[in-house]
């Protein structure tokens, strides 16, 4: 099971699959798919997911999950809208919403790292708590109207002019900036290296002097902030906030990290690979939408692709076990 061909498929199978998908869309949508405008459009559509998937990569580098990020994104959007409705400024709204994300994330981190609840179970609970809180605070309604300042909603609708009637969207820029920060954190700092050590073997890392608990605590805090930022970006884009708008983010973020893991040498989560995973999900969604394929078919295909990618990458893996 270790022939070079299998090794190649294992490592690059996901990319090969994606290349085939892109070629397929390109052939069927020659006028609209591979155009600068459409690609920039995809990047904007994917900007929220990029932020959440990047911070999810941090948590998954330790071998944990955070299932509450979608609810947290919704909650942060609702919180910001409520601050606007109460007459708060844009800066205050953003500050309060990001703080809510930080506090919620750190609460998750505390319960995981210091109380010892399994992340899966804890964040599953947190998901429903934060989701319920968003409903309660918003009264179950979409919050919009004149209270949401133009400065806040214009941000998502503008960008840097590129010429040829194209603009580089602000949301894309913000997403890439977030991903770059996470990349520096995971790949270039001592703390990032220690997170990967925890993900490889938590007990060995602890005995080798890695402060496991503080790192887990902080990482969940970061995931909370990432989710809140994504919620703000969404609220800015649609100039409103409703208590379910972040709900699709969690599964897509985890799927993106998994897709990325299939492309790395030892199957570990890496930010750049996660970005490739985000791109796959984005390209697939955009292409299928343009071909007027129903959204439930899109969901089925996305799920099938994740499963297929993970399956090919586990071909002949597992050394000596």
């Amino acid at each position, binding site marked *: 099971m270790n022939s070079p061909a299998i090794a190649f498929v294992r490592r690059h199978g996901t990319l090969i699959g994606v290349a085939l998908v892109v070629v397929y869309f390109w052939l069927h949508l020659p006028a609209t798919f591979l155009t600068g405008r459409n690609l920039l459009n995809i990047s904007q559509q994917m900007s929220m997911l990029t932020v959440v998937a990047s911070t999810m990569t941090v948590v998954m580098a330790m071998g944990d999950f955070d299932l509450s990020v979608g609810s947290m994104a919704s909650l942060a959007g609702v919180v910001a809208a409520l601050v606007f409705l109460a007459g708060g400024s844009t800066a205050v709204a953003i500050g309060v919403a990001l703080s809510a994300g930080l506090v919620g994330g750190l609460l998750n981190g505390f319960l995981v790292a210091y109380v010892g609840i399994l992340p899966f179970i804890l964040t599953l609970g947190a998901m429903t708590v934060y989701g319920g809180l968003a409903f309660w605070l918003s009264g179950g309604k979409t919050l919009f109207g004149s209270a949401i300042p133009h400065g806040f909603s214009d941000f998502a609708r503008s960008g840097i002019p590129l010429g040829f009637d194209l603009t580089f969207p602000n949301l894309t820029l913000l997403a890439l900036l977030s991903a770059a920060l996470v990349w520096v954190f995971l790949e270039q700092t*001592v703390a990032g290296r220690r997170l990967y050590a925890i993900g490889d073997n938590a*007990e060995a890392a602890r005995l080798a*002097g890695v402060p496991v608990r503080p790192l887990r605590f902080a990482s969940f805090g970061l995931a909370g902030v990432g989710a809140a930022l994504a919620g703000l970006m969404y609220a800015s884009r649609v100039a409103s906030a409703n208590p379910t708008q972040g709900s699709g983010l969690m599964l897509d973020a985890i799927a993106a990290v998994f897709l990325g893991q299939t492309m790395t040498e030892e199957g570990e989560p890496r930010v750049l690979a996660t970005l490739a995973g985000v791109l796959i999900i984005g390209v697939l969604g955009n292409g299928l939408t343009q071909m007027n394929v129903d959204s439930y078919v899109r969901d089925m295909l996305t799920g099938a692709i994740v499963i297929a990618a993970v399956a090919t990458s586990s071909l002949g893996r597992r050394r000596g076990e």
Partner: protein
Amino acid sequence: MSLLSVARLAKTYGGAAALRDASLTIEAGEVHALMGENGAGKSTLIRILAGVVQADSGEITVAGEPASIANARDAYRLGLRFLHQELNVASRLSVAENIFLGRAYPTRWGGLVDWAALRDRASAALAALSASHIAPETIVGRLAVGDRMIVKIASTFVDDASAPGRIFVMDEPTAALTSEESERLFRILDELQRRRAGVLYVSHRIEEVLRISNRITVLRDGVSQSPIATAEATREMLIERMTGRTRLEAAARPRQSTNARVALSVDRLTGKGLEEISFDVREGEILGLAGLGDAGGDRLLRALMGAMTGGSVAIAGEGVRPRGPAEGWRRGLAYVPRERRSEGLLLSQSISDNVALPHLNRLSHLRLFLNRLAERAETAAVGRRVRLRATGPRQRAWRLSGGNQQKVMFARAVAGAPRLLLLDEPTRGVDVAARFDIHALLREIAAAGAAVVIASSDREELLALCSRIAILTDGRLSRIVPAEGLTAARLLALCYGDDRV
């Protein structure tokens, strides 16, 4: 006619002879003890009887009939019952369910479990062991260890008309028991003898064996010696038989100057399973920790690395009391854990990542950003020191052989120039060449002034390396003896509690 007779059993695993010529017989109503050092072949003999592995040659006879045991089912049908030191109980199920585990539950109404009958039959099995204090509906996880052992024994006692149990093989059954629980087990052994069953009793505990067995067979290097009637056996005789002719360790031990400064001072240290341990280690000294089975050497090292609950530790006169491994490494302690795969290595990461992990603050820019050049340079330097054979610092740890993986653990430990090096079974599962390299390195580190503490079950290793050896017994420090002039047999006798030196 003997109940069980094995003759001239031999078994080789991939070129290494585990059992070369083992014979013994068990009579009805007899408790037959089997003794021998680690690696003498006891486990292999048990595995053959249990049908886990097949002997390469030799014969097994059960009640006069030649028997072939190809799997666990055959062993069961022949009336062999096994009791291991690890208690494999389903701790969330009830006592009655555990007793019938892996066997047909009594049923009624065409297939539904007859819980009342299950309980009654479990009760009867427990009563036969005079263990009626255990209620059959109790959840096993709530029982004390000794009672769990009794549940296991009871499950081997449940009447099975097609294959009644008649030969009971017990592997270190008292290892995890309190003395009171052991007494209960011994009464069960009496009961078994009264019923004319046979018992093969494997134990390291000489006192116990002398007290409860009828005959003793000693295995050494895979060869059995003719059985001794327990009435004629003595502790000294058994130790000599287990270790063979006593010989002096040839390797040169580092000369210990008695006026060196105290490097490590431990005063009334307590911790999980440890009671008030006090000792000093001088600069340049290697102290060994010896003991039988679960005596506490590993726990002592963990306690020094931050798990201590009381007492004080000073390094070079300066009080340190790490609250965890992170602080321990910061204060100049280094630790090589026992299980390199589960407690030591990051298998999917590079050698350099593994070696640098505890030293990242030093090998970084501003203690914040990684400095991969410094990590690789350091890894290359300590890699040469431990004679690591690898393609380079970026090779993944899982690709290395066991010996080289262990050297990665050593490279990690010595990279920070530790003041105190704590080693748990440093050469376990390591080949001769790597073991030689590791020993040479340890002498060099000690000579450079570090204090080294080694817990090892390999007595030859302790004698070759250490200037003094601390004997631990059930979490207490019973004495510290100089290694000079000590033999492996003598050290074993000391571990068994012999007071003469």
